[in-house]
């Protein structure tokens, strides 16, 4: 038995499953396209029907990429938070990032009529929502960073994040109390999440910020492993605790912040994927966990999206409902089967 497992086989299997899910995701949708034509469309050959080409290139491909970015990004940021706070209940949103985004979006959608004037002009175009969500999460993040720089205790940051979440959600409540049914509906729809309406140019910006977050996460692997011993041991091993903590928080914010901005507040994935991965890989080593969470996240999100499309029907279900409906039973099943939580 080697000293450290490399888990080569599971990684190969996962990569193949990811490819399979990617193909399946592109093949399925409200319009039926034969697999042959999907393949032709992908590599640029003419398809039997002109519009199929358009559907694949302008709609299904960006959606599949968005799904992979969202799934892997949320999974990785969830893992970072669970290790940093040594808390299995932590997810990408414990720092109050989503609530910041929600407040930003709520201000744009529901505040427009309330404040009139200045806001009325930019009323709910897609970019204004993206910008509002980013600004909202950025401002909350800024507060969390300033405070975390002054605070020794990591657990206090967790509580402060939760407090920010309550402040912002209370503000959203006040706003929604005074807004019209139409605005309220629009806000709720944003809250259900959507990964289906990004164009390539939007996806490009999305991807760049996401990639930055992933790169910072990769550079934090060693720090994350050291943190498994606890903060005092980590310090005694020469870890610069404040700097590592800052990098981990920045990576999480970049990932969770942009994903919320572009795809809405997708719940559950960030919390569940790391647990799912630990059940399968049974290790705490982040050199293994991080890439595994990445793959798992992408796979699960592709599957959830395929189901949400309700293949061969005109309906689409909200992605946020599907992630929980599919994901929660899987986690329960994994936990019951192993009878032991790996953390």
């Amino acid at each position, binding site marked *: *038995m080697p*000293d*450290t497992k490399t888990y080569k086989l599971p990684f190969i299997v996962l990569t193949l499953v990811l490819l399979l899910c990617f193909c399946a995701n592109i093949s399925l949708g409200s319009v039926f396209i034969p697999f042959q034509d999907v393949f032709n469309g992908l590599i640029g050959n003419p398809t039997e029907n002109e519009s199929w080409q358009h559907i694949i290139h302008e709609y299904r491909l960006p959606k599949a990429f968005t799904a992979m970015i969202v799934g892997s990004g949320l999974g990785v940021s969830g893992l970072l938070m669970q290790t940093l706070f*040594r808390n299995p209940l932590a997810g990408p949103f414990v720092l109050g990032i989503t609530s910041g985004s929600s407040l930003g979006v709520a201000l744009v959608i529901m505040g427009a009529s309330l404040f009139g004037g200045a806001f009325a002009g930019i009323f709910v175009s897609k970019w204004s929502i993206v910008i509002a969500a980013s600004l909202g999460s950025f401002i909350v993040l800024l507060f969390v960073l300033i405070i975390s720089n002054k605070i020794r205790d990591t657990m206090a940051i967790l509580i402060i994040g939760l407090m920010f979440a309550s402040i912002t959600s209370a503000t959203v409540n006040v706003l929604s109390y005074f807004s019209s049914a139409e605005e309220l509906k629009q806000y709720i729809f944003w809250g259900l999440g959507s990964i289906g309406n990004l164009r390539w140019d939007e996806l490009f910006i999305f991807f760049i910020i996401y990639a930055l977050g992933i790169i910072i996460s*990769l*550079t934090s*692997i*060693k720090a994350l*492993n*050291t*943190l*498994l*011993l*606890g*903060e*005092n*041991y980590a*310090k*005694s*091993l*020469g*870890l*610069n605790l404040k700097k590592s903590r800052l990098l981990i928080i920045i990576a999480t914010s970049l990932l969770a912040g942009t994903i919320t901005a572009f795809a809405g507040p997708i719940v559950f994935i960030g919390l569940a994927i790391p647990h799912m991965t*630990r059940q399968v890989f*049974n*290790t*705490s*080593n982040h*050199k293994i966990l991080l890439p595994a969470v990445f793959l798992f996240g992408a796979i699960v999100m592709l599957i959830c999206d395929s189901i949400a499309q309700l293949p061969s029907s005109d309906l689409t279900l909200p992605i946020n409902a599907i992630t929980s409906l599919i994901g929660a039973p899987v986690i329960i099943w994994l936990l019951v089967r192993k009878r032991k939580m*790996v*953390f």
Partner: protein
Amino acid sequence: MTKNKSHIVLKTQDLTIGYSFKKEKSIIASNINIELHKGELVGLIGANGIGKSTLLRTLTNVQQKLSGGITINNTTLENYSNINLAKVLSLVLTESLGSKNLTVFELVALGRQPYTNWVGNLNEADYQIINQCLLQTNIEDLKHKKCYELSDGQLQKVMIARALAQDTDLIILDEPTTHLDMYHKAYILKLLQKLAKDTNKTILFSSHEIDLAIQLCDTLIVMTKDSVITDQPCNLIEKGIFNDLFPKDLIIFDNKTGSFRVKK
């Protein structure tokens, strides 16, 4: 026996420890002058609340000293960066592990962190050191076990192996024998004695096992309300230091056997 200056691993000069809140200082102990030499096993003993933990926390740079000087290998403690301190000083703490899902090998391997690259990959030399540490602490058969499967005694050996793998001149352990049964208390301290001798590292631990410490340590640091005394155990017995360690209403120190007895 003469020990020249280069052999002094840890030295404190008129050290005062305690806490400072804003401008108010509460002094816990002062005039601490300790010299620890290479390859010595040193026990730190004293009653509860006398400041053993505070002293260890100060020596390991977790807590600020109030005044005086601390030098490790002739360099003052403040002049060490985090990473350089990690190369001369390793710790075994009383706090529980963040994650017990690591294997014994992975945990001991984390001791190599100060020396590994940005992603923490181990090279051939690292593997050799880790395996040697597993051998020295008699845990090579536990190598692939997860930490949650271990008993307290086994886990303590693993934590010692991890500190050993960090390859530092000084290892400081905070009460390494708590939660252990009588046999394992003796086992761990005996192991520390052997490691100090074999690896020529200086090992400092705090403990309430005064009888064992008297038997096994090269030097004892005794903290009492008035002073901090460092000497060889037999000299300390001769001077009658242990008689003043605790209030005299319940237990007394027997100079002949070197242990405490309950008053009849």
